[in-house]
């Protein structure tokens, strides 16, 4: 356990020096700030409050950027160490492969979450000053769900990285997965549902099994308190399960992605280490 914490501390600090993470985290903070400022600038329209506009903007922004950060940072992390020989030297020390994997994953997760909180903190402060703190719990829900999404995608990134021989190959796979989760999945589910005339429960399952969709749906439920704004699938699911149960289910989906991808990545990493 001591070695896990030592490595987590080291990798957490190392990520702060990483240029790629710096660019992504900086872009996230800048975009959240810009989005919040732009959304607050307009008057309330058709019953949609300033807070709702800002929160909805942040949710859509996070649905794009958080998986990109999690997947690419995670995928690159072990692969670049393997490519540069750092991993070889590290695995010659008195630590076993699962310890190295766990320590590195924890360290990176800590810094990525800290980066997200910093990004949201700017927007949250602006929101509190301009709109007040009445809707703060809903905002914190979105932040918490973003952290869960970050963990899930980071774990998937580490699972990619665990078996990737080079940084460039790992990055390629990460971008492909990102594209699949963020863009292609919704279109794919729509097309599949239309062509195969899938039952609504299957469509719902396909929708919520995607961690990005699960995050989006859970966040909209947290902001609006109902499934009215969550599209047809969300509305159906909220009516069928109730908002609370649906939120719990969606959080469970994100947690399962995190745990399953982490375990898979650890297995790949251990198998990939010759001895």
């Amino acid at each position: 356990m001591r070695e896990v914490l030592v490595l987590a501390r080291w990798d957490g600090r190392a990520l702060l020096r990483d240029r790629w993470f710096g660019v992504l985290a900086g872009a996230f903070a800048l975009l959240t700030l810009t989005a919040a400022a732009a959304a607050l600038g307009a008057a309330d329209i058709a019953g949609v409050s300033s807070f709702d506009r800002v929160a909805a903007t942040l949710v859509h922004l996070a649905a794009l950027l958080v998986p990109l950060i999690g997947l690419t940072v995670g995928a690159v992390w072990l692969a670049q160490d393997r490519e540069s020989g750092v991993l070889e030297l590290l695995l010659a020390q008195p630590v076993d492969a699962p310890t190295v994997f766990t320590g590195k994953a924890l360290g990176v997760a800590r810094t990525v979450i800290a980066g997200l909180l910093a990004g949201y903190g700017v927007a949250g402060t602006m929101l509190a000053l301009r709109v007040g703190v009445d809707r703060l719990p809903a905002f914190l829900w979105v932040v918490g769900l973003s952290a869960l999404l970050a963990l899930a995608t980071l774990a998937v990134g580490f699972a990619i990285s665990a078996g990737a021989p080079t940084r460039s190959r790992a990055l390629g796979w990460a971008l492909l997965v990102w594209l699949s989760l963020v863009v292609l999945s919704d279109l794919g589910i729509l097309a599949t549902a239309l062509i195969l005339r899938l039952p609504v429960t299957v469509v719902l399952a396909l929708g919520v099994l995607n961690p990005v969709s699960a995050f989006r749906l859970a966040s909209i439920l947290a902001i609006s308190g109902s499934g009215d704004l969550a599209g047809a699938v969300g509305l159906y699911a909220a009516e069928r399960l109730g908002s609370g149960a649906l939120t719990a289910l969606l959080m469970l989906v994100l947690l399962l992605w995190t745990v399953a991808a982490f375990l898979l990545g650890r297995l790949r990493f251990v198998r990939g280490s010759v001895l």
Partner: protein
Amino acid sequence: MEITVHDQKVFALAAAFTLEQARERAWDHKTTAFGAFSRLLLRPRGDEITVASIEKRFDPLWHAVAHKRLVYDRGREYRVPVADQTVRSVTIDGRDLRQAPAAARALVGYVPQVPGLPAHASAADVVALFQELRGVPPDPLTVLQEVGLEGAAARPIGTLSGGMVRRLALALARLGDPPCLLLDEPTSHLDREGEELVRRWLADARTEGRTVVLATHHLDGLETLVDRVALLEEGRVVAQTDVGALRHRRAFDLLVTPPLPTDLPAGVLPLPSANGALRLRVPRDVLGETVRLLGDRVVSVREVPVEMLLREADR
């Protein structure tokens, strides 16, 4: 210390494959690599592959298919890797590297040929990390002083020279005083002072009874540092001997013009030669006497490479 490697089959000898077998094997690799898309590939024609020569890191046949411009020696015997990972177990001082990796690794200090150290971290931070992993109280400055890097403690490793990185890697390998040192080309990139430092450390390690496994291409001067020498080719030991036997065989090859005197010192052997000159194998202890005897008939004197002596000693 005893280091045991069981069933190391990194390369399995497969003598004299026929061209047809080679082609089949290459095709298998190709279809495996492309998976479901392999149906789209055209099966190679007979003259597209010739049997491969020895290649260390690739399956030579797959390489041959992937790079058809390469022409391999059809008649030559070659080796085929049987799998990526075939070392079943390694034990160090009775501790199995697979069953108890941390305990086994604690016994070994390792310097790879190209030390992979994080470029953005400082030398002091890296030493502190490795000290913590080895359960040694963090004191990076003392360690860096031992290798003359105290002035570079705060510098990122990416800004250090090759020799400085090598010194740092050597310092890391000694953390926690491991009873076994595994050093791959420990003196490469080092200046004379650094080489002296390494030689001193190795001598100390020998005195203290540590096991040092040293991989190097610089074979000269080895007899002062090690007890036993092995020659590796393609990851396999092809010759090995005690340093005492090697020292005993140290010799020089002399190129001389005929005629040869009849009273050459004992141990001097004539060797096959060309161009009318004569070659003599002269043991080191009679070199002076032989050269004096031959006088200006000596054209050249060349020390016999350790590698050659090692092969001969093993035979």
